[in-house]
């Protein structure tokens, strides 16, 4: 060790950053209830689960009805069209974004369901997005169908008139 080492240490700038790259890989389990929903999507169907106590239809079926505590698992097929209950225009880019911004993310109450699902609406300008829009699923081609919500590419306007606020006010 050289004689001037302590002085050098004393005058050196503090270490403010130690890069520490962590990569962890997980194999996530969908579980029984979500699996039933995903399998149906591969078949161009949207199947939720009804709670035997409160009779609400959840998408996907759930291991526990959030208000009743019993599995919401009685299979119910719902429509692939519904009403936009609320929406958000995303204008900032981020790593996992599906499209370049701006784009419109929506909550859609599918006909026959009691719980909105989240998806994207394409084919309208962001400034035209509004609550109550009626939208319809645009599925991927047959050979791209799989047990994933990506089986629906996006939703687009169905051409129906907007739904009245009262019809979805309880699902905001």
């Amino acid at each position: 060790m050289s004689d001037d080492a302590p002085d050098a240490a004393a005058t050196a700038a503090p270490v403010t950053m130690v890069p520490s790259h962590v990569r962890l890989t997980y194999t996530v389990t969908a579980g029984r209830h979500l699996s039933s929903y995903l399998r149906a999507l591969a078949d161009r169907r949207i199947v939720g689960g009804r709670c035997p106590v409160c009779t609400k239809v959840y998408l996907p079926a759930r291991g526990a009805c959030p208000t009743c505590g019993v599995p919401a698992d009685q299979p119910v097929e719902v429509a692939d069209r519904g009403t936009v209950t609320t929406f958000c225009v995303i204008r900032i880019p981020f790593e996992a974004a599906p499209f370049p911004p701006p784009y419109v993310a929506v909550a859609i109450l599918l006909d026959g369901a009691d719980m909105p699902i989240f998806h994207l609406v394409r084919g309208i300008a962001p400034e035209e997005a509004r609550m109550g829009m009626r939208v319809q699923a645009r599925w991927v081609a047959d050979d791209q169908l799989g047990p994933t919500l990506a089986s629906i590419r996006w939703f687009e306007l169905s051409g129906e008139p907007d739904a009245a606020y009262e019809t979805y006010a309880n699902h905001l």
Partner: protein
Amino acid sequence: MRDVAIIAFAQLPAVRRDTEREEVELVQPVVTAALAQAGLDRRDVGFTISGSCDYLLGRPFSFVAALDAVAPWPPIAESHVEMDGAWALYEAWARLQCGDVDTALIYAYGKSSLGELPDVLVQQLDPYYLAPLGADAISLAALQARALLDSGRADERRLAAVAARSRRAAAANPCAQRRSRREVDELLAEPYLVAPLRKHDCPPISDGACAVVLAAGDVARRLVPRPAWIRGIDHRIEPHQLGHRDLTRSPSTAEAAARAGAGPDAAPFDLVELHAPFSHQELILRDALGLPTDDGTADGIDDGDGGDGPAINPSGGALAANPMMVAGLTRLGEAAARLMAGDGRRALAHATSGPCLQQNLVCVLETDGGAP
């Protein structure tokens, strides 16, 4: 202190990889079973708390989805610790000491199978000084085991005897994961995993969940015939830096035990549930708790079904099933369940967290007698 008892315990059988259940599906059955055992409607629970860990599940806020399992509607008074469920039970016990609520529901879940557990546990170490070394939990435990062997207070045969006894006990526990009987000589013939530890000295990787119900005073007496009263409970932590500790001793266990009424002069226990994920850690814990570490039998280890000492880990312990964040609470639940079933009057239960027994909780449970 107010009288508070464990009045129900439910668990899922631990498995190496549960491909059927996500978090809610793990928790919903144990919560439902524990409340049924307690004869308690979920709407009458005064306080709910859970223990789980985002890093095990690989996503932030993983406890949020699991909360559906207790159907928190109407809204409930609730909390969550990023710790083993045993510490959730401690917070619930403290909450009941305030006197304004009488019952608490505690649940814990963990799926160690989702990630590469050794890599995940590296993230638990000091990020500046230890994590960059990449030392995994088994290697750190092996360091500790080596120190214990070098101290002359244990040898590899005694480690194997702990593992063999765990497997004998686990054979009778349908919720245990590692249940095949193996004899000491057989185990010693196995190769080292990380010397001086062999595979049987290390815990299995497990998925699981459990739930416990606590009740205070007369409410507990009204709900179940034989509550397992918490006579004392305490927990202590030690420095994280391994170099600051004597790894062959567990002073935090000894301190927690003294404060929980399980000190050197405490009355004997009928059974003991120790959360010792590694075989040598059981010996360190027994030493810290003043439990016999050598009962004079041929293998030097009390096998739990003879002699005057307490039965140690009649469930098989963490060597038989180790769902992380669950295994500590399971020790308290197993001990209480045995007392409630009439298998003894007085039990000690222990939980641990962190590398090399860094943090330890000790709980003394008793029944008043009464028909199971």
